[in-house]
């Protein structure tokens, strides 16, 4: 777990969180000669800390373990969050699981199915390219794509990404091909991507952090299908394991699992250490010359608020992606449970065109922007079984499988505009098992997201019909709230994306941003925020690769003291 309180451990940096951001920061810091301690509140099921070349094998194709039984944590009974749509809801309307990513060594990357696209050039310049939107704080990033490109390339090499350079006509320029070719296309994605092409769209093999060939000492993916929300039993997924292994093998890094950071100790604008609490109940301050916070865009602002960091924007501009699901029922079986969950995507709905401009104008908006669309389906039988009503016919429904084996889906990760009222703060009453106030999420979509979802869901419906779907159904996450809102359900007014961004945005001016253009807290410049909390806008892409690239860039600069 950890050696407990001690003396003479002068870490150059303590990194809070071992997910993609914390792992990338650990690597960048150790490679520049720094000593680091990574503290992770969750358990270690990933890597043998005594022999980092060896990987632990506790992940499995087990829906009970990874679904209803929270194997990767956090368990909402002991680490809940709370939710409300707006202040008009009162203190909260829900206590439980709110957009949780795993609390375990490796963080969110352990359960992700590893879609790791780069952002477009426009994603860094949304205000300049598209202009302001009333009710949102659209801004440019304080860096551009070209600044990040070398770090995207490094990130793709480290985690191992399979893909086909040149296959996406909208992609920003790349300086190198993908490290691996794409894996096999899933049958459903062959149907839907062919139909998308016939509709004039541009599907391409999804850039995927799963090995298509042996890479980094880990085997090729064997298509078991337990991908989204599962740890990989054979470690074919490019979670942060390669970065953590390299950092540990440098001899300059330690990882302490089951050790929770409860406060960053900040005195006179400088961090001097981190207060830790472990599972034996020991609480102490571990000193360090600097601190990196990479706990995810909900837990990072929570920790900074618990640490007394004062900035009017800290916790604000929480973004989740507005997800649009269009599902179609196909006459034939699609066996979506084979393969790596999503093998094709298309980016057309991130790009302004005549139809989207007309839809924006009709909605009274200056523009709308969708997101990357994943060609996917449903794969898990327990989840399916819970969808059909109990009683006579349940077995027949499962055998016929209209909601799983015949279902193809297109899922759009829609751009979610930053709004000041969407925020993470400390719940005034609800505590975790450690006795600390939990994170409260206040979130409601901007009408931009609703208008974009409306417009693009029509296009996606036509694609599915063109692929052979007999009927289709559309849903969104978050769904609109109703008086009978099912807050605990899979689809509810609580965003389900597991893409969380924006709660400590970076920018050039401390009046407009919590972090500077290099991810350092304006309030304490020896604190680096190295996760998606710093994203000024959400883009329409999963955040993981950009988290890693940005953490590599910013941690290297942090180490150099720029």
């Amino acid at each position, binding site marked *: 777990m950890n050696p407990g309180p001690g003396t003479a451990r002068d870490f150059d940096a303590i990194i809070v969180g071992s997910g993609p951001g914390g792992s990338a920061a650990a690597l960048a810091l150790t490679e520049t000669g720094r000593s680091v301690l990574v503290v992770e509140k969750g*358990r270690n099921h990933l890597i043998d800390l005594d022999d980092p070349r060896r990987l632990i*094998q*506790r*992940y*499995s*194709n*087990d*829906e*009970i*373990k990874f679904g*209803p*039984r*929270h*194997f990767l*944590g956090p*368990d909402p*009974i*002991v680490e*809940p969050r709370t939710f409300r749509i707006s202040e008009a809801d009162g203190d909260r309307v829900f206590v439980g699981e709110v957009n949780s990513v795993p609390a375990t060594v490796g963080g969110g990357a352990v359960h992700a199915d590893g879609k790791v696209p780069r952002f477009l050039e426009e994603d860094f310049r949304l205000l300049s390219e598209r202009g302001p939107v009333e009710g949102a704080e659209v801004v440019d990033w304080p860096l551009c794509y070209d600044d990040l490109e070398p770090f995207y390339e490094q990130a793709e090499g480290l985690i191992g990404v399979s893909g086909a350079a040149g296959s996406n006509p909208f992609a920003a320029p790349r300086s190198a091909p993908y490290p691996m070719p794409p*894996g*096999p*296309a*899933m*049958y459903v994605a*062959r149907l839907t991507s062919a139909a998308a092409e016939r509709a004039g769209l541009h599907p391409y093999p999804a850039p995927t952090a799963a090995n298509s060939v042996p890479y980094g000492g880990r085997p090729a993916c*064997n*298509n*078991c*299908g*337990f991908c989204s929300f599962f740890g990989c*039993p*054979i470690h074919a997924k490019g979670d942060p394991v390669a970065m953590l292994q390299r950092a540990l093998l440098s001899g300059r890094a330690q990882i302490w699992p*089951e050790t929770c950071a409860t406060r960053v100790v900040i005195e006179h604008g400088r961090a001097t250490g981190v207060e830790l609490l472990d*599972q*034996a109940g020991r609480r102490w301050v571990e000193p360090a010359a600097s601190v990196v916070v990479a706990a995810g865009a909900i837990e990072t602002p929570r920790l900074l608020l618990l640490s007394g960091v004062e900035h009017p924007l800290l916790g604000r501009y929480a973004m989740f992606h507005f997800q649009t699901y269009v599902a179609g029922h196909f006459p*034939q079986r699609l*066996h979506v*449970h*084979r*393969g790596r969950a999503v093998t094709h995507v298309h980016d057309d709905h991130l790009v302004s065109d005549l139809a989207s401009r007309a839809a924006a104008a009709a909605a009274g908006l200056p523009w709308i922007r969708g997101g990357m669309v994943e060609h996917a389906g449903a794969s898990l*039988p*327990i989840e*399916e*079984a*819970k969808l059909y009503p*109990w*009683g*006579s*016919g*349940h*077995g*027949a429904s*499962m*055998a016929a*499988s209209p909601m799983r084996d015949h279902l193809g889906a297109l899922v759009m990760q829609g751009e979610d505009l930053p709004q000041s009222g969407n925020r993470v703060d400390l719940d005034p009453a*609800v*505590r*975790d*098992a450690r*006795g600390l106030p939990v994170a409260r999420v206040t979130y409601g979509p901007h009408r931009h997201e609703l208008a974009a979802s409306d417009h693009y869901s029509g296009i996606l419906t036509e694609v599915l019909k063109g692929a052979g779907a007999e009927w289709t159904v559309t849903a969104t996450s978050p769904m609109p709230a109703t008086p009978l809102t099912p807050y605990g359900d899979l689809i509810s007014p609580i965003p389900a994306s597991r893409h969380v961004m924006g709660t400590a945005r970076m920018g050039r001016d401390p009046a407009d941003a919590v972090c500077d253009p290099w991810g350092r807290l304006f309030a304490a410049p020896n604190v680096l925020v190295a996760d998606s909390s710093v994203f000024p806008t959400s883009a329409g892409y999963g955040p993981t690769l950009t988290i890693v690239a940005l953490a590599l860039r910013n941690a290297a600069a942090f180490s150099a003291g720029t």
Partner: protein
Amino acid sequence: MPVFLTDEEYTILTSVCSRLIPSEDGPGATEAGVVDYIDTLLGAFSYDPPRIWAAGPYSGRHGGDPGFAEFLTLSPLEELAWRSRIEGSLGLAEREVNGPVVGLQQRYREGVAALGSGFPELSPSEQDAALHAHAEFAALVFEHACEGMYGAPEYGGNRDLVGWRLIDFAGDVQPRGYTDAEVSEP
């Protein structure tokens, strides 16, 4: 022998499960032993390690060693969570940070008692009416019945893989996986 339920509760709950997922043209909850899945969950801490998470990485059904037969130990925080969920808070301060928690054991005990010892003798339509009258309990049992019907058999249900056979699902396929052709072709 059930590990948590009494023999009478076991009999009543078996009847409940057989209405939630009936045996009709194919096997249902009875053949899958769904009640044993529920009893194993409720009595998880009668075992050491507790029967919460099967270890893995493989079951042995598609190669490799039968690692699902072993269960993983819990950390103190995980044990706190699972004891709270199953046993309830029982007035213990560390389980009542946000107030009392009613455990699954109590919900099952009270739910079964409310249906009464005569439940197995009712006609199917009377049983359905009783379950609709106790909708919250029926929803709880149904959730677990789905897990016991279509989850890995090491958790006590899906006996002889009847659930997976019904839906032609291979279940956990590591370390074999699927071939590229099985992924890409119809």
